[in-house]
């Protein structure tokens, strides 16, 4: 189930809390009212019972009852402050001597005496207290209908709780209004982001956004900036790559056309087809280099950060074997100096291999015949040097730029080799330096901090 939005959850939370507090407070108030009312009327009943128990009842005759009833009726017709308290006086033998109008008429003469008790009289519950008169000749019973007390409590409770109820309502309304207002800016922000087009990476407008949310929008804006930079890099790369691919494609197309035009010239056809094949090989190498470069550049390779122990001696041996035929054809000699620690000992063997392969490939490709290529691993450095090659200071500053090829360079290449080398090195916190030394032109991989 989808999680309710924060605003709704807060409203429900505050609503429930308020309602619970209100209910508990109500129950406690009810309890308190009930106790106070009971205490009040019990005191009143007891006082009345005491007074009655000390009265002299010897002179009461049956006519007194009639006169009293009539009196009570007159009073209640005129104006009555009904307290629904009644009393009855009995002789200690249980004979009813006097009672208070209609109410005391049905009180039973006997029952709990000396303390309060609840009795059922005429289908109603009554709170009744009986006292013996001081001369022990009479029984005084004073009672009150419990429903009356309940009504009093209800009235009190209602008056007491009404302001609280209104307060609760006002509080809830205020919470809803406040939350809605506070969340409106967030909703606006959400709507803004929702309608944003995929290529719009302008920063989010942070005005009118609550201070609590600005760290988040700040992070999002930084992310936007990073994505924009990455996209720019990608676009530049694609533009460069497209440019670099156009030349080999042109070569293929032109050579193919020459072959097509030479229907009656088998020699030219053969030559053109050879050149076509050569062009296709060249394009394949370029595409492979482009792919390797873009995979490293955009970190698309999950295994790039693998931390395997690298056997550099083995990697050097393997690459040297691979380039041996090409080197032999140019009478190039390899010298190895694998005496010391490499710049990085752990990493992904495939990428370490690709880095060194590009170093050696460049060295073999650009070395003149009879040159010496020295591969050195020592002092946390890997360097590949080719004798008889030197690069001008002006060209040194451009080396390693994507697709850069020195002026007048006749040897084919993608212009990506050094970029790939530098990229892989940077993943392992190293850099690639190009220098002219006594060993010739050297590319050295060394830790960035060095």
């Amino acid at each position, binding site marked *: 189930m989808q999680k309710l939005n924060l605003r709704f959850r807060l409203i429900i939370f505050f609503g429930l809390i308020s309602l619970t507090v209100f209910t508990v407070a109500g129950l406690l108030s009810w309890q308190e009212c009930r106790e106070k009312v009971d205490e009040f009327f019990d005191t009143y009943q007891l006082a009345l019972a005491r007074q009655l128990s000390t009265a002299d009842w010897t002179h009461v005759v049956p006519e007194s009852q009639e006169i009293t009833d009539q009196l009570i009726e007159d009073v209640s017709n005129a104006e009555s402050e009904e307290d629904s308290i009644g009393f009855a006086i009995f002789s200690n033998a249980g004979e009813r001597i006097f009672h208070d109008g209609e109410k005391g008429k049905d009180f039973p003469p006997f029952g709990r005496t000396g303390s309060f008790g609840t009795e059922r009289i005429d289908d109603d519950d009554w709170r009744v207290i009986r006292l013996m008169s001081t001369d022990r000749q009479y029984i005084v019973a004073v009672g009150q209908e419990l429903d009356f007390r309940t009504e009093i409590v209800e009235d009190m409770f209602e008056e007491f709780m009404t302001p609280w109820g209104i307060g609760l309502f006002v509080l809830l309304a205020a919470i809803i209004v406040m939350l809605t207002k506070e969340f409106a800016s967030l909703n606006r922000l959400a709507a803004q982001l929702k309608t944003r087009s995929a290529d719009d990476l302008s920063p989010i407008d942070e005005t009118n956004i609550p201070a609590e949310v600005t760290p988040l929008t700040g992070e999002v804006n930084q992310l936007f900036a990073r994505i924009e930079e990455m996209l720019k890099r990608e676009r530049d790369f694609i533009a460069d790559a497209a440019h*670099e691919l*156009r030349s080999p494609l*042109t070569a293929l197309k*032109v050579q193919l056309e020459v072959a097509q035009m030479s229907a009656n010239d088998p020699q030219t056809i053969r030559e053109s087809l050879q050149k076509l094949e050569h062009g296709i090989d060249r394009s394949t190498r370029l595409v492979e280099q482009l792919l390797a470069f873009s995979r490293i550049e955009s970190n698309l390779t999950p295994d790039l950060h693998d931390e395997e122990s690298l056997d550099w001696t083995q990697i050097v041996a393997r690459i040297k074997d691979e380039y041996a035929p090409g080197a032999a054809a140019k009478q190039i000699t390899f010298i190895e100096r694998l005496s010391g620690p490499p710049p990085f000992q752990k990493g992904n063997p495939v990428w370490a291999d690709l880095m060194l392969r590009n170093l050696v490939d460049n060295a073999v490709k650009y070395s003149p015949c009879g040159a010496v290529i020295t591969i050195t691993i020592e002092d946390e450095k890997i360097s590949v040097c080719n004798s008889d090659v030197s690069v001008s200071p002006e060209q040194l500053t451009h080396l390693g730029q994507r697709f850069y090829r020195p*002026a007048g*360079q006749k040897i084919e290449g993608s212009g990506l080799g050094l970029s790939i080398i530098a990229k892989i090195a940077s993943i392992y916190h190293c850099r690639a330096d190009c220098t002219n030394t006594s060993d010739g032109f050297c590319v050295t991989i060394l830790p960035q901090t060095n």
Partner: protein
Amino acid sequence: MRILLIEDDSLIGDGIKNGLEKLGFSVDWFSDGDDGHEALLQADYDAVVLDLGLPGRDGLSILTNWRARGCKVPVLILTARGDVDERIAGLNSGADDYLGKPFALKEVQARLNALIRRSSGLSTPEIKYREITFNPQNRKTFFNGKEVTLSPKETALLELLLLNRNKVLSKESIESKIYSWDDDVSSNAVEVHIHHLRKKLGKDIVKTINKIGYIMED
């Protein structure tokens, strides 16, 4: 027609040179910008195909330099960049047309023919002279409405004469126009071609001016 090609990419340069030669042009190809720049100042070319993305001296500076020295030869620039700015920069530096890579050889041929035609003051693609009709694009020649088979060099010579009517062309200038520096030219090659043209298209189409050269008169 003699074309100067300056292109650093060996496969493209080789392809354009071979292709254009098959299409009847004589082509001198330089892969170095400086050499190419010098070549135009040394020989008489009908048009130049210039790659802008040269590693040595860049194409635009070569072009600017030629124009500054008053060279009026039509220049077709080749560019691998897709962006409009480079084309505009090329045209503003004095290029007459441009082609974006990858292109077809036939397109290079068509553009070159159009450039040469324009620089010779012609407006229609077909050149007519008396009973002769010549189409520079498909290299076909018609005499009295019937197609005549001419060798590539004969076609080139005919085209040269047609484009330079009423002008006396010396034997040397004809040689320099229809042969590149790579071609071996025998001493009487031009005379042989003229002889063949007269045989196929009529004795009086070309007049010989003794010790000076040849002329095609209206």
